[in-house]
């Protein structure tokens, strides 16, 4: 009895897994191709699209330093005032963005080299304030001058050690 039931179950399972299904003339790439065409056609509806447009009566524009640094974008009516402001500080801004070749050529000029050297000098000084571990180094220097090792009072291990040493010496 069990074998009969098992046999029937196997037949049903085989049919359910479509192993025996055979659609004449169909192959996988045809099916995908037709499905793609269907999706393209069905996406022509645009109920879920919200058109959006920016409104402005002007377009902001940029000026450029000779090394390529951008100023702006700013209102076109402010261009002259901005250019004049930089000119009075000795900086000539360009209306057209310099190309990479032009920037490289500018970086070889005396004007740029002088400015850049001054910039590097200032950065070297400023970067000192960014050096890590300055307090620890200061303490190390003080230890050398005093001839004794300082104790970090927030470090329990060091405090205990120092207490032991003090107890021994006294």
């Amino acid at each position, binding site marked *: 009895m069990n074998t009969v039931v098992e046999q029937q179950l196997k037949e049903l399972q085989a049919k359910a897994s479509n192993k025996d299904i055979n659609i004449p003339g169909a192959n996988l790439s045809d099916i995908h191709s037709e499905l793609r065409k269907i999706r393209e056609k069905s996406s022509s509806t645009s109920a879920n699209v919200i058109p959006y447009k920016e409104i402005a009566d002007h377009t902001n524009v940029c000026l450029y330093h000779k090394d390529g640094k*951008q100023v702006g974008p700013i209102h076109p009516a402010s261009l002259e005032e901005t250019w004049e*402001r930089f000119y009075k*500080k000795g900086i000539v801004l360009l209306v057209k963005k310099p190309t990479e070749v032009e920037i490289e050529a500018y970086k070889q000029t005396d004007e740029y080299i002088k400015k850049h050297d001054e910039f590097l000098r200032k950065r070297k000084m400023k970067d000192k304030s960014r050096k890590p571990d300055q307090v620890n180094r200061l303490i190390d220097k003080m230890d050398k001058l005093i001839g004794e090792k300082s104790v970090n009072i927030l470090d329990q291990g060091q405090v205990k050690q120092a207490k032991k040493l003090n107890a021994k010496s006294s």
Partner: protein
Amino acid sequence: MIKFLLGLFSKLFSEKGMANETTSTTMTEAIPTIVAESLLESEEAQVVAPLINNVAFGGPGLVHSTPIISKLTSEADDSLANQALDSGTYTGSPSQATVGVHGSTVFLKEIAVLGTVGDLASIAANLIGQSIGTRLDLDLVTLFTSITRNEGGANVDITPQDLFDAYGYLRGQYAPLPYNLVLNPQHVWSSVGVINFFSNVADSAHFAAQGGVGSVAEDFMRNGFAGKVFGFDLFVDGNVTITSNNASGCAFSRDAFKLVRKRDIRIDVLYSGPEVGWQVTGSAMWGEAVLKNNFGAEMQFNPQT
């Protein structure tokens, strides 16, 4: 008995259909796909506007001009032939801001309004309001590079000395307090950011006593932020754009920039019969300019991402 059972089993497993069988169908057609209200993407808006000089520009005219009056200098020695109080010569130009129209328009199809979960008109108004707010902030933030003084430079990391120098410069120009510092978030929270000045880790520049952090550092470590740092009111603005690993914030006094408002935001709605929908337009009119160049210092630094 066996025959009966066989008959029963064959009926139960027969292809012709079973009694008490369970079938199912999908409810896709009845249950809509979108069941939650939409969430609008967020963006940064209106950080800089409250920090600068805001001017209401009612009446005729489109160019708002602010002349600068030279100060009187007091001579140290009043025995000179000239006056003891002398008028200096201001070398800057009057600050001029030209008002322009800014806005955006959205077309709401009626079919979309009827088919949407939630209030689409309200979403459209949010979209427009948000875009105009961001546009205003962007217009102000891009003025930072119009300041001639730059404490940083291309591809350099911010240091405490830069902030000291900026403060010293503004103070030396008699810029009125308070001083604001607007930076890109990456200038503050990154491995090269301001927050490193206060963290008590091996690679930080310690500004705290050995073994402990100061109160500013406590604020940073506890809250991730400190309202004031090195004398500046600190603000972060995501609209400070990053270009080739450089971003330009600014340290400034209120009168460094001006925002001239001709008309505040207004929403106009027009129904279009042929297109079966509403044209929703939001617009505002403003102008912006550098008011006093020496009341600001550009902070161009590397915002490591």
